[in-house]
């Protein structure tokens, strides 16, 4: 998931869980059934899990722009030679 997608997924998760909780409480209170409330809430949690956790394509609409390989070759990384010479000097 890209950064925008992560933000969207997090917001979606919070809102969906809150809505599930409110709906569950209202329906449970109206029907005087504790069991109904728990079942609706559990259903809401499962639904939220299915929507926000997997990597759906809608969360990947703003993919990260990695640096082009041809650009990277213009600035080569410095070679790591200094380590071996330092070791020789310490042994003396």
């Amino acid at each position, binding site marked *: *998931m890209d950064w925008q997608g*992560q933000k969207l*997924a*997090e917001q979606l*998760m*919070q809102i969906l*869980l*809150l809505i599930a*909780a409110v709906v*569950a*409480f209202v329906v*449970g*209170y109206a029907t*005087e*059934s*504790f069991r109904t*409330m728990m079942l609706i*809430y559990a259903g809401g*949690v499962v639904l*939220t*899990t299915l929507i*926000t*956790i*997997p990597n759906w394509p809608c969360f990947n609409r703003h993919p990260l722009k990695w640096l082009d390989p041809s650009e990277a070759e213009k600035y080569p990384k410095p070679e790591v030679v200094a380590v071996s010479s330092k070791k020789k000097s310490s042994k003396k």
Partner: protein
Amino acid sequence: MHSFGYRANALLTFAVTILAFICAIASFSDKFSNQTPSAQIQILNINWFQKQPHGNDEVSLTLNVTADLQSLFTWNTKQVFAFVAAEYETSKNALNQVSLWDAIIPEKEHAKFWIQISNKYRFIDQGHNLRGKDFNLTLHWHVMPKTGKMFADKIVMSGYQLPNAYR
């Protein structure tokens, strides 16, 4: 939210926190219920009244308990525990409470009942003070919720007296 595990953890934590809030609100909603329980206890017969070998008095009664505890049940009630206690005063103790009978009421339909029974638990005094004693019969109940605080209350019925001599 960098990986499945991270998102799953966040979701689960939030879900359980909200569940705690739902249960707290459900428990709070109990305050809005109107509770009007009623009860009556009649002593039909004193079966026997003796002094035990250790010197303590013991009584056996037949009770007729009529009660309507239906209004105590809300959507958040798991069960109601009711018991009948005999309460009296002696020179040794300011208050003696002896439980004579109890019952667990799991549903509203069973909360309106009429039962005729001899005492389930023995009515034994600490000493031999029961002759001619005035006592109250109190119906106590504890309402046990599905979530939240348990609360208890009682109805006191007074005017009962034990006979003056052993039978």
